[in-house]
């Protein structure tokens, strides 16, 4: 592989761009969530800071940065400081393998709108999302607080359970695309989106990613009605902010993956690919917010029952059926 300085610059530019866009988007997603929830509840939502409250994320940022950085007595110092990073960083790293637009040509170089087109991109995603579990586990464990500990135990069980159905629901996608490479998967959908072939896998994946990003109705690890704030009860200031932003980055990344695996990635008629991709991601984000405004939280036993006795078997059956179908079709 040649290390052309222009290539390196371009990769650096792409990373910077992705970082900037994702972080800004995450911040505004918080804002959007507050607005949409307010509308759902016949309220107005934040509208004081800047025009239509648009500077609210900035105000929140300043507030979080200036809050006291607090560590409970008896907390494990290093793990306590490590956990928020462990929650946010893997989420953002997943984006490295997501293709967010058709290749461009800049100064004669063909530029993939993807940071790294790994041949095992899908596996990298599964691996990184497993690492994100550590954020929850360590945060709860290191806090030396019963609420945090309970929240993180719940979180661990939930994330591990739903990762299984999430992974299994992606197997048919790989079978159809015959590749782990995400750009190949997108390319395989240039004709027909996989959601048409795999509606069941799509639904399982959707439910699983809702559980993966600990959103209502799967917010048991936080469950403010029961556990104060669950695994991040003891965090304050920007460390809490990292957990918080991590959750929204997760929404963006998982929305992007859902679009990539089932909705044809950046494919779409008339509009430029990047717009198509962003639109799909935002649609998923809206869906999550809408769900939050509607559904109540599951009970823990319902959650486990649903994950292990319904989603996982369904995903397995789906793989079997897809396999038969592929074999029969030749």
């Amino acid at each position, binding site marked *: 592989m040649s290390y052309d300085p222009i290539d390196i610059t371009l990769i650096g530019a792409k990373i910077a761009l992705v970082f900037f866009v994702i972080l800004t988007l995450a911040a505004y997603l918080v804002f959007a969530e507050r607005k949409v929830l*307010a509308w*759902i509840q016949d*309220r107005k939502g934040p509208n004081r800071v800047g025009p239509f409250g648009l500077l609210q994320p900035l105000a929140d940022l300043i507030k979080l940065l200036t809050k006291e950085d607090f560590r409970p007595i008896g907390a494990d110092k290093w793990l306590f400081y490590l956990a928020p990073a462990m929650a946010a960083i893997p989420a953002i790293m997943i984006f490295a393998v997501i293709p967010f637009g058709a290749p461009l040509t800049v100064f004669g170089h063909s530029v993939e709108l993807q940071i790294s087109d790994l041949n095992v991109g899908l596996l990298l995603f599964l691996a990184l999302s497993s690492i994100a579990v550590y954020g929850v586990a360590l945060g709860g464990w290191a806090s030396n607080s019963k609420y945090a500990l309970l929240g993180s135990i719940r979180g661990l069980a939930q994330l591990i359970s739903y990762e299984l159905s999430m992974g299994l629901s992606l197997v048919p996608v790989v079978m159809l695309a015959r590749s782990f490479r995400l750009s190949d998967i997108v390319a395989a959908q240039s004709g027909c989106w996989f959601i048409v072939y795999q509606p069941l896998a799509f639904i399982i994946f959707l439910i699983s990613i809702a559980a993966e990003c600990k959103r209502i109705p799967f917010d048991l690890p936080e469950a403010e009605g029961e556990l104060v704030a669950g695994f991040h009860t003891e965090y304050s200031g920007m460390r809490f902010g990292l957990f918080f932003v991590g959750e929204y980055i997760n929404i963006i990344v998982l929305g992007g993956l859902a679009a990539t695996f089932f909705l044809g990635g950046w494919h779409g008629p008339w509009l430029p690919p990047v717009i198509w991709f962003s639109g799909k991601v935002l649609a998923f984000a809206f869906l999550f917010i809408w769900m939050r405004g509607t559904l109540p939280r599951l009970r823990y036993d319902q959650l486990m029952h649903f994950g292990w006795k319904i989603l996982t078997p369904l995903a397995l059956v789906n793989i079997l059926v897809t396999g038969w179908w592929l074999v029969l079709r030749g």
Partner: protein
Amino acid sequence: MKIFSDMTALMTGMWITWKHIFRRPVTIQYPEQRRQPYPRYRARIVLTRDPEGGERCVACQLCSAACPVDCISMQPAEGDGGRRYAEWFRINFARCIFCGLCAEACPTLAIQMTPDYEICTRDIMNLIYEKEDLLIDGCGKSADYNFYRHAGIAVTQPRGNGAEELPPVDVRGLMP
């Protein structure tokens, strides 16, 4: 089938919240727009005076007993002509929950609630209202009531001259 009814339930919920997104918000933009509360609104508490201008409160401590958060305290004392009154009377509005139980308990209609709800302040000590802050010059509601006219003790009128009272008994009288 159960799964269908479950799905319908989910979808109905989603549909209802979807519709609400387009409703007009009920929020009032508070400092710019203000609601005019009804006269019976329960906010800042005052101590009223009787029609003759005397303090109505007799420091009976029923309000402080009724108060669920114990935010009223006072010291009764004996004033001119045997009148019982509050030497000091304190309401800690930082604690008050504006439940109105004090006003309900008050036998002299002294303590009353007003619609003035804008008493926020940055120094919590400013929320401790003393008698001089609470006592107003008017009668508030039930303007014609004067407890001492009905109490049977001689404060505003000689004994036996109050409403529903007979003149005092002559104990040395020999009539049966």
